[in-house]
């Protein structure tokens, strides 16, 4: 392990010149029923430990909610899974075979991990439909992209997703002109277009009305099973409405894990998080 770690630090992606790093197999293998393994992960920013020896396992097909106070490391954890941030120590595997720490963001996306950001980021200058087209699972190399034309099947797929997210009427509208909630939906739609094995959804209902929230809950629940969904959320009502299993993060590591009721009755959780006004 020691030598491997050394190798890893010398071969860090953000340090360039690592052309030679061999890529591990890119076929997802979930024969053991677990889709994501995060083991012993630590990240330090300028002396501040954002993630501290985090261990987290996600089963294939489950819908997991992750909660925790601000600064608990939720977004940083997402950054590590999607390749935006590299941990100082630890391992992150997608299924049995894919070492996430060796892949770049696009590679991670292409093996089947999709992410919705906390702040909705859609391509503002593109139409709703173009946003979905860009996100669609397809050959994403340069030349195929230049000559790509939408096939009837792809059109149908885009239409289907448009319907799911309720934006049929806005398909030709510039994404930048959508409301905040609509952008959230569009982003979820983009996630769907990617057809990923694992969806990471960061605060999906921020800025949504209650009706929209309910629809989102329905959508996420319907996705679970065929996809694995990890949701980070602050809104406890929303979490309660969708979650089977909840993980509480605190100061960069897992504080408690279980059903919403179990978690809510956990003394440590009450102390650090639910003890305030937020939980009832």
């Amino acid at each position, binding site marked *: 392990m020691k030598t491997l770690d050394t190798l890893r630090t010398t071969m860090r992606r953000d*340090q*360039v010149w690592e052309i030679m790093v061999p890529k591990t197999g890119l076929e997802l293998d979930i024969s053991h029923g677990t889709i994501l393994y995060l083991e012993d992960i630590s990240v330090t*920013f300028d002396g501040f430990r954002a993630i501290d020896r985090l261990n987290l396992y996600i089963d294939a097909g489950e819908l997991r909610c992750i909660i925790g106070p601000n600064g608990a490391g939720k977004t940083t954890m997402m950054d590590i899974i999607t390749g935006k941030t590299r941990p100082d120590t630890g391992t992150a595997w997608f299924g049995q075979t894919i070492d996430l720490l060796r892949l770049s963001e696009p590679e991670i996306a292409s093996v089947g991990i999709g992410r919705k950001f906390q702040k909705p980021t859609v391509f503002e200058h593109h139409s709703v439909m173009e946003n979905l087209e860009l996100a669609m699972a397809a050959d994403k190399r340069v030349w195929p992209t230049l000559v790509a034309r939408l096939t009837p099947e792809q059109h149908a797929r885009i239409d289907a997703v448009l319907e799911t997210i309720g934006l049929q009427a806005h398909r030709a509208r510039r994404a930048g002109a959508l409301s905040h909630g609509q952008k959230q939906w569009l982003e979820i739609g983009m996630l769907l277009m990617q057809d990923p094995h694992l969806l990471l959804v960061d605060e999906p209902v921020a800025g949504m009305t209650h009706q929209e929230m309910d629809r989102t809950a329905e959508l996420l629940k319907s996705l679970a099973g065929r996809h694995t969904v990890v949701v980070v959320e602050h809104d406890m009502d929303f979490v309660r409405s969708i979650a089977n299993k909840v993980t509480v993060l605190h100061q960069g590591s897992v504080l408690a894990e279980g059903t919403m009721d179990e978690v809510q009755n956990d003394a440590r959780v009450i102390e650090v998080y639910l003890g305030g006004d937020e939980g009832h």
Partner: protein
Amino acid sequence: MPTRLLRSPLSALRLWLLVALALCAFAQAALAGSAELEQGIALIKTNKYDQVEEGVTLVASSRDPRAVGLLAALQDSDLYLRKADGRLFIATRSDAGYDLIDPLTQAPAGTAGKRDLKRIRINNRLRSQLRTAVATLNLTHPEASVRLAAVNEMLDRLDADSLALLRDLAGDEKNAEVRAGMTAAIALADLNADEPARRIEALDQLEGNLHPAVQGGIQRLLDREQDEAVRATAERVLEGLQFKRDLYGFAETLFFGLSLGSVLVLAAIGLAITFGVMGVINMAHGELIMLGAYTTYIVQQLMPEHIGLALFLAIPAAFVVSGAVGILIERGVIRFLYGRPLETLLATFGISLILQQLVRTLISPQNVPVANPDWMSGSWQINSVLSLTMNRMYIIAFCLIVFTALYLVMRRTSLGLQVRAVSQNRAMARAMGVRSARVDALTFGLGSGIAGVAGVALSQLTNVGPNLGQSYIIDSFMVVVFGGVGNLWGTLVAGMSLGVVNKILEPWAGAVLAKILVLIFIILFIQKRPRGLFPQKGRAAEG
């Protein structure tokens, strides 16, 4: 030639007199000397090489303090004979023909036309003799520096007479440096001694002496030396000398590098504030430097009598001028473009063109002369190998002062605190009651003012013209980016190291190629570490 002279009766007399001078009371010698002086002058007046030569010998051996001026004038071919009365004068060209000076009293003696005078001719042999003679006379000069120069002058061509004189003088010499020089000269002469032991002793004495003559002398000894022990010692001493020479050579390169680095740091440090701390790409930064240089020029024009004082006054003046222009730019243009760095780049580039053209139109399209005060020239001679020029010393010191001042402003004043707060989190700083607009303007003014101060320094080193700024803008950006944006120390380290690297490369790559190599190095470096040498860490920087 000295040996030939030695055999002549006159030389014998001179030798005697030299010894006498060393031993006897000064007045006695002076009395004996004045007769010789007159006799010598009479011989010089004949203007025939052989007799002038004897005359010089006599004048020199008179040890008269007045003799130096005469001989030095002769050496410079400034000694003339007035045809009318056959008197000698030092003559210098002037509007009305020649100005005459009495060679002994150094008192002005009227003027003369070209036809009234006849120059005392000298040939190479005389020139060489004169050099030694003047140096010998200067050995007893009251000024230590003159004595030292005299010793160095005669170090590698001592004749028996002057050697004997040196041996006498060395014992009484008070000044350590001069005494060391004299010992070296004697040792150098002793390399010719018959006994190997004495030669080795002489070599030991020469150890570590960096006078160029020493190396030559030992090399000549090695060429003819048969004795193994002496050879070994000579080689060891020579090697030691070479090492020392390399060391000083490196020190000199380092010094040049640091002074170049200081220029880079000065040029870049204002940018480290505006670009590094505020994130504003100010392409007009170079022109703010240029304005500082022009301010120096104008202040000097206002008080042409006090160049040095003008330079000092120019520092605050340039700070105010460039700072005011900077605030104007910030309020007029940049504040509308925060968060749009590429647009800022274009707009400030437009401003740089306008400022350049403004200077061309209002002052002159040509370079303007900026005077250097006297104390800027000259150099500090550490030893015969290493001398540090004063202007470079001042630039290094000035750079460090400016850096320290700026650092203190950023660290210790409330403005600095507010600047750092705004640069880290604008919204939060605002919520805490920081007036961010005012802080932006003041920060930009500070960075611009520093650029102006840099301009004052640069005006002393390079040509001041409308293009001055352009030649520094790319370098400045390189330094800031290389050092790590938002980090004053990084700018200092980056500027200094780039300067040193540049100067180390220069001897084998040439100035232009060295610069190209440094640029390529930075381009590659940024690929490797996009955030520079000292990146700002943390979550925010990950953005």
